[in-house]
Every structure is written in C-alpha cells, then in structure tokens.
C-alpha cells in the first residue's frame, strides 16, 4: 500500500524572465513586468512529495529529517537569497520560470532519493501561482 509524504521548505530569490535571443521589446511583450532589467523577487514555497510503501521496519516512507536535510543542502543552499539568473549555474542559460525551477529541483533531488520511491515537486512562486513536476 503506497503512501505519499510531503516536506515543505521555502526560499527567497530574485529573478527576471528574459529570452536572450529576443530584443527588449519582444521580451517586454511576452514577459511584461517580469522582464524588468533590475530583477524582482519572490518567496518560493517548495513542497517535495515522496510516494512509496512504508518500510516495515520503521513505518516510514522516508525519514523526514533526512529529506529536510537533503532539501536544505541541495536546494536551499543553492537558491535561497540568490539571484537565480546571476548567482546560479542552473539558470545561467535557462529562463527561471516556476516551471523550469521545478524541473531543476526535481533533477537535483532525484539521484539522492531511492529509486523505488516516486518524487514530485510542487513549487509556489506566489500563494496563487504554483506548478507541479512531473505532471500527474
């Protein structure tokens, strides 16, 4: 019997939505004020969902303390209080939309989570805008 467990974390970051192949007018037309050159920012809420069978010895799907430590070490330390466009290797050449951030976080965490467990990322950019990856 599979059970889903969730760990919520948060980080704050600056970003800008911008396609370097387009000029300022086209970026402004597509991304609006999200393309402003001096950046803006968000409080991101990250929910990591792990699905699997509880271990018969512990009753755990995954040790939540270990999961929390993993997210802090691999995700928050990279992105918290950073400029996603300027300060992170992951978004040097990738537009830091909520969609792309969720995919990047999935790819960072996946190798650290046992392969028999399913992983899903939900990322809130604002309380009313959020994305999930993989889409269920």
């Amino acid at each position, binding site marked *: 019997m599979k059970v889903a467990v969730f760990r919520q974390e948060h980080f704050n970051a600056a970003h800008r939505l911008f396609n370097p192949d387009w000029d300022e007018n086209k970026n402004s037309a597509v991304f609006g004020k*999200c393309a402003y050159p001096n950046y803006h*920012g968000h409080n991101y809420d990250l929910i990591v969902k792990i699905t699997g069978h509880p271990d018969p010895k512990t009753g755990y799907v995954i040790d939540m303390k270990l999961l929390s430590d993993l997210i802090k070490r691999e995700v928050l330390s990279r992105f918290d209080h950073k400029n996603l466009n300027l300060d992170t290797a992951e978004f040097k050449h990738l537009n830091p939309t909520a969609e792309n951030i969720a995919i990047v976080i999935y790819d960072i965490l996946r190798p650290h989570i046992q392969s028999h467990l399913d992983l899903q990322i939900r990322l809130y950019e604002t309380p009313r805008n959020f994305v999930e990856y993989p889409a269920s």
Partner: protein
Amino acid sequence: MVYLTRQEHFNAAHRLYNPAWDEVKNEAVFGKCANQNWHGHNYDLLVTVKAKLNDNTGFVFDVKSLSSIIREYIIEKLDHQNLNEDVDFLKGKMCSTENLAIAIWNQLLPHLPKEVQLHGIKLYETPRIFVEYFGE
C-alpha cells in the same frame, strides 16, 4: 470609529546594504540579505484607515477607491521592481521592511481623502515576518 483594511500585494527584489560600510561589515550585519545580486520577496501590504461610519452608505470609505489609491501610488511603483534601484521614494534609504512600511505611510498620506484617517500600515515580507507602523 470603524477601521477598514485593504490588502494588496507586490513582488520585488531588494538587498540590505549600508553603503557607509564595507562588504565584510555588511555581510556580518545583514548576512545573506546583503547578497550583491539581490534577492526578493512576495510582499503583502495591509492598509488600515479609520473614520466615523457614513450612515448613508454604511461604509467607512469606498474600499474600491482605497484599493485604487493604493495601487496608483504604491503598488504601481513597487511591483516587480528593484526596491534599491527603481523606486523614487526609497532613494537613499535602507530597504528594510521597517523603512518600507514608513515610506509607504508617507507616500500614501497625502493621497487619502479628508474623510478618512490613515491608521496603520502592516507589511509582510514573508508569511512569518511582518512590521507595523502607525505614524508615531
């Protein structure tokens, strides 16, 4: 006297940094908030006005008008901006949440109609950090 509050929100980048100090001192005082490439927040702004109830309408004040005033004079200037770089009424100020709340009070005050008094500004930088200013 009845108190009426309107909640608005905006997203912005900022940095905590005292230009009179060197990088080391800024880092020691402000930690990761001093990141030279900015970080950002989803700010929630609550503006409270007070007045005697208008018997003809049952209103303290037309809340749609209050919303329009806040949007025109505050949100338009702050949303998706870099608070340190882009906002005329924050020039030369430390971009702490405390100072931002005071600046919003001062910016809003001249634009409110005589029939209401500005009572308080409540400004959330994150869901767990907020400041209040009552003009004192």
